[in-house]
């Protein structure tokens, strides 16, 4: 018995050694990504097939609010191991830029994008965006006007019937910081107070908002298009509303729908810089954005003349929330301080 155990230990060690020490001669690129695996993996496979460069990916998970890789990138800063960071949103990319983790790269296709979807210092470029939308349970709200702007969350008619995700993390954090930057502290705090008084539920993440609206526990909630599309695909009785669109609310509105792009950035002192550039160019190419738009996440392309997801309106038809990204990075902590002050009262 003892021999069997010793043999199995030795075998495990040998397997581990072999698995970890195998390093092929094919060129490779190391990508850290917080984009959901079922969306990013097909893109990696397509890249490997067309460019003959092996992708070694590290994925993040929602369980730690997709912040694990950001911590890893910061910890690895003195000896970087990643070549590219493909982030599913923008807030953490801005923070990495501030911490000097990112490198400059002028991607040829980056200039096709609007100026607010690329960094003025060329340290990141936006692509394939998600919109912040209102997901409505059509069984709970029958015979009533669907909530069509953010003020619906503070409307006493909907007291205790709406949900949002925790703004400490993810796209809700970025969205709230954008509102803070746009409105200023005073108006933002008033809005937060109104949210609290209207008993808006704070849930762990956007996926939970989608789930609880789908089951009818809440009448509507604020989430991302990919989650809302997933609810539709699951056959839930929900409808997606792009908030603060003038044609829907029939009044003048300065807010619009908030768009959160994926961001791609090269890591400073990346071990495989050439392969990293090839991958960034590949990802920013219109064909890749078309692939992402057609995929399960329904990402909205930021390149002009690329067909968007069939069940979402094109970006040209949307009124978008004006965003100053450098300001966004500066205001994140202040927004969280406001949120904490109001919510923990």
């Amino acid at each position, binding site marked *: 018995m003892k021999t069997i*155990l010793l043999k199995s230990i030795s075998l495990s060690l040998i397997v581990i050694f072999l698995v970890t020490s195998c390093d092929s001669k094919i060129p490779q690129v*190391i990508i850290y990504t917080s984009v959901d695996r079922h969306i990013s993996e097909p893109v990696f496979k397509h890249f490997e097939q067309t460019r003959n460069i092996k992708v*070694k990916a*590290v994925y993040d998970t929602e369980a730690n609010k997709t912040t694990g890789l950001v*911590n890893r990138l910061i*910890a690895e800063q003195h000896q970087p191991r990643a070549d590219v960071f493909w982030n599913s949103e923008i807030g953490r990319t801005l923070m990495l830029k501030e911490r000097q983790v990112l490198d400059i790269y002028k991607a040829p296709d980056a200039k096709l994008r609007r100026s607010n979807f690329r960094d003025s210092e060329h340290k990141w470029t936006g692509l394939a965006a998600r919109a912040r939308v209102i997901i409505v349970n059509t069984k709970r709200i029958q015979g009533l006007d669907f909530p069509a702007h953010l003020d619906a969350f503070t409307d006493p008619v909907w007291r205790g019937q709406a949900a949002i995700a925790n703004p400490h993390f993810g796209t809700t954090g970025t969205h709230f910081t954008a509102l803070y930057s746009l409105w200023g502290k005073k108006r933002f705090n008033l809005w937060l107070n109104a949210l609290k008084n209207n008993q808006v539920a704070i*849930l762990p993440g956007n996926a939970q908002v989608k789930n609880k609206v789908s089951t009818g526990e809440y009448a509507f909630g604020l989430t991302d298009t990919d989650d809302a599309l997933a609810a539709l695909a699951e056959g839930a009785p929900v409808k997606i509303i792009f908030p603060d669109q003038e044609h829907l609310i029939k009044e003048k509105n300065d807010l619009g729908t908030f768009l959160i792009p994926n961001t791609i950035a090269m890591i400073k002192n990346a071990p495989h810089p050439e392969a990293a550039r090839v991958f960034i160019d590949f990802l920013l190419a219109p064909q890749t954005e078309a692939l992402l738009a057609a995929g399960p996440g329904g990402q909205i392309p930021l390149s002009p003349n690329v067909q968007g997801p069939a069940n979402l309106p094109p970006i040209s038809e949307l009124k978008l929330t004006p965003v100053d990204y450098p300001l966004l990075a500066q205001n994140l*902590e202040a927004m969280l301080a406001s949120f904490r002050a109001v919510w923990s009262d």
Partner: protein
Amino acid sequence: MSAISFDSRRILSFGSILAFTVLAVLPILFLVVSLYLDHFSTPTNISFDALQSLYLNSLFFSSGVTFYSLLLGGGLAWLFSRVTFHYQFFWLGLFCLPVFIPINILANNWSSLLGQHTGLNYMISLWRPEIKTLFNFSPWISASWVQIMSFYPISLLIFFAGFQRWDQRWSEACYFSSHYRMLHFILSWRYYRHYIGISALLIFFFSFSDFAVADLFQLHVYATEIFLQLSAYNNLSGAIILSLPVLLTGAVCLFFLYQSLEQIPLSNESGVSRPVLSKKLFPIQEFMIQIFFLSLIIVIVGMPLTNLLITIDNWGDLLNMLQLIWQDILLSFIISFVATLICVLLALVLSYNIHRKLNALGLWTRLVLLFIFILPSSIIGVAYINFWNQPYLPDLFYQQGLILPFALALLFLPIAVELMLLQLKKIPIAEEQAAHLSGIPFYTALRIIVLPRLNSIIKIVFLLCFIFCFNELTISLLITPPGFSSLPVRLFSMVHYGSQSLVATLSVLQLLILATPIFLLYHYNFFLFKKNI
């Protein structure tokens, strides 16, 4: 004592301390020093008063969870070891099932089971539409329930190991006294207080440091604040500062435990005894026990498991999934197995070192271990990256993942050491001394005298560490080499984007993969030291 045995003891002592220093002390010291030299900032966006209130709330909450987990686990362990009935192993396995399921999954499951419009409430509303919500618990109650359901198997297993070593002659000696019950209580307390202490310490800090359940029920607890410092503000030093009060609490608990362990324990010199209680003393029929177990198992294991099973739409997905992720499974299995072996071996030598006072660093080692146990695993992960991700070290260590099993082993080493110490205390030193005086080499004495007596606790430590390593997520995410993925990373990614059915399928798959070999291993007693002396 012969020269050989003296040398062997020194080698063992020096080797274990050296390994511990390289694996634990240096990475953490390196991180603290580099943070101090870089920019050591205080916690962001939180006042002292708010922290104080959070700390007290969490203290109260975790104490409650600990108390009820001990009550449930201890009660069950007592029944399992004191009453002989059929299918004992089967029942014990069933009661241990919740520990195999990652706490996030278990929490999600209970949440959907007791949700306002889902699970039981939904079924009741179909039957009696006038009843809107029958089960409507406050988030604190729900979170406590989930944590108790997740942690009670830990106390069950530890108490079970303890009950196995109870010498029936102690009970029999009490029968001669007219104050049988009082005497028996005093003896039991002297024997079991160590098991109670260690179980309480482990469960309390598991509960205190758990972020997942609090997050699901949106409770703001102390662990949430540490997580926020790390993840929302990326303030590593802030998180370390916030861990210090927890460390202080742990140190106080450890001090009392240490004092208690220093008192003369009841030593079991003649091995295991399974008492068969007379009908007079324990007049419960076997049938009644089976009924009791059945009703309990339906509530605490059957319901969440059934909920998981009925969520699966297509059972064919189980096989498809297996084909898709067999590499992740294999990798998780190998890494967890190696990590568990490292953890058990290191715990064995460290605890022996501490207990037999082979050097003067025993108490310090325990304090460092406590610090490791209390520190969030993200910080340990970052400490490992800082220490091992160096240009002058071969890629094999960090880039190719050799340190991953070591990091996992380190994470659960404190649990393993405390449990081993618990059992070592029960082994009298006289036999070892006699062996040494007879010229028996040190390692031979260790093998034939000490190891067989640690049999039951080694099994428990192996089981717990393997499960914890297999389900661990944070360290895996921070240190896993590019291109590899473990099963928990896959599972928790899917919790976000996968359908409920797919998540349930993967959870069941993980449960089966983890539970089957362990049950087989234990069923056939496939272990190094079969016999107790």
